């Protein structure tokens, strides 16, 4: 007897996609009940894993990193920590614009409807140290940090580990905040500064 699968994906560790059921070929040497048993078992195995797909991790932005409105005579910086604390040096706050850390959500989609408890370990990397200038205003983001330090603490270069424990849903997520320091130098005028930075997550282990 030959077992031929079609559209089946088995990842490391045995993840199974069963959107298309394997096809069975019966040979004359095998009794009919063997193929029947196999078919029933495969159908049963497919139940509860409706149209599974490959596991994936996604990162979404919930809130930008907000430094508010700053009066900058010449140069200075504002630090907004991941916990929301504000530290100013050489700049002065203006108005009541909202100030706060960025917020991201990392979501792990196991790709099927299994209820098996999973622990997902991922590494998150924050980057964005380039300078940006608008007119006579130049800004630079630095010291990116998060409220999630993980068991291993904060690593160098804006990296840290995060863990999603006891994931029993198809999608499990964890939300974290990101703070940073914005250094501004102003030679003329004012500007609306929008400085991009990236947050990437890589799955290290799922068990």
């Amino acid at each position, binding site marked *: 007897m030959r*077992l031929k699968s079609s559209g089946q994906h*088995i*990842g*490391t*560790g*045995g*993840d*199974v996609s069963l959107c298309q059921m394997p096809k069975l070929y019966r040979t004359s040497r*095998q009794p009919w009940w063997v193929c029947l*048993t*196999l078919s029933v*078992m*495969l159908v*049963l*195995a497919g139940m509860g894993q409706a149209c*599974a797909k*490959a*596991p994936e*991790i996604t*990162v979404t*932005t919930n809130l*930008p*990193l*907000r430094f*508010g*409105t*700053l*009066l*900058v*005579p010449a140069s200075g910086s504002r630090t907004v920590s991941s916990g929301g604390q504000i530290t100013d040096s050489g700049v002065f706050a*203006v108005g009541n*614009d909202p100030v706060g850390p*960025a917020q991201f959500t*990392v979501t*792990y989609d*196991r*790709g*099927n409807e*299994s209820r*098996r408890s999973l622990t997902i370990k991922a590494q998150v990397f924050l980057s*964005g140290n380039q300078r940006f200038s608008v007119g006579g*205003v130049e*800004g630079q*983001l630095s010291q990116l940090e998060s409220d999630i330090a993980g068991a291993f603490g904060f690593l160098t270069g804006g990296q840290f580990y995060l863990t999603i424990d006891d994931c029993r849903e198809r999608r499990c997520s964890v939300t974290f905040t990101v703070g940073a320091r*914005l250094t*501004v130098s*102003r030679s003329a005028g*004012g*500007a*609306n500064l*929008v*400085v*991009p930075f*990236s*947050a*990437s997550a890589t*799955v290290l*282990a*799922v*068990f």
Partner: protein
Amino acid sequence: MSSHSVHRLLFWQSSEMMGAPVLRIIVLVVAIASSAPAFAAGSSAEEQGRAQAEIVRPLVVTREQDLAFGAVFAGNVPGLVTVTASARVVYQGGVEAACVQGLCSAPHPASFLVRGEPGRSYRVEVPDSVQATGVLAGGSGPAAALTVAGLMVDTISTPGTGGSGSLDDSGQDRFTVGGTLQIPAQQPAANYRASVPVIVTYG
């Protein structure tokens, strides 16, 4: 022991016990189908965040004209000279203007030019009152201090708001400051001067 290794162990035990290729396949299928742990080591995702800030230039305030109460005659009863922010002059009590209009300095409010971020609102703050120090005519010594009370502010952009204004498209506006000089009865002739601190902030 992980579930994966458990399944592998089951496979070998079964094959030794049964020795049948068919059952090997069955056990293998059961093992795979029942496990299905979602393992995605190495998969990654990236999201672009953004940091945003509005940077504004500092406010620059330039005095264009001082607050002047002009020259007044002090009478036998106390009096008041009020110069409003809109440049209206009112004499009350025992004081009256000492100058014929045009012959000496006319009373007028202080005037300031404020420059900053176009379109931004700002606010002007002045104290409730200040003391004016004087020198007796002929330089014969200091005179008793006078009180300048009821200091008031009016902006060109939004008059009547008590010190709130907004900068125009070129980032400019003007505001004026008035007040009331309180003059006691029988005040000797003297020249008076006061400093009025003006604080301008973005609103």
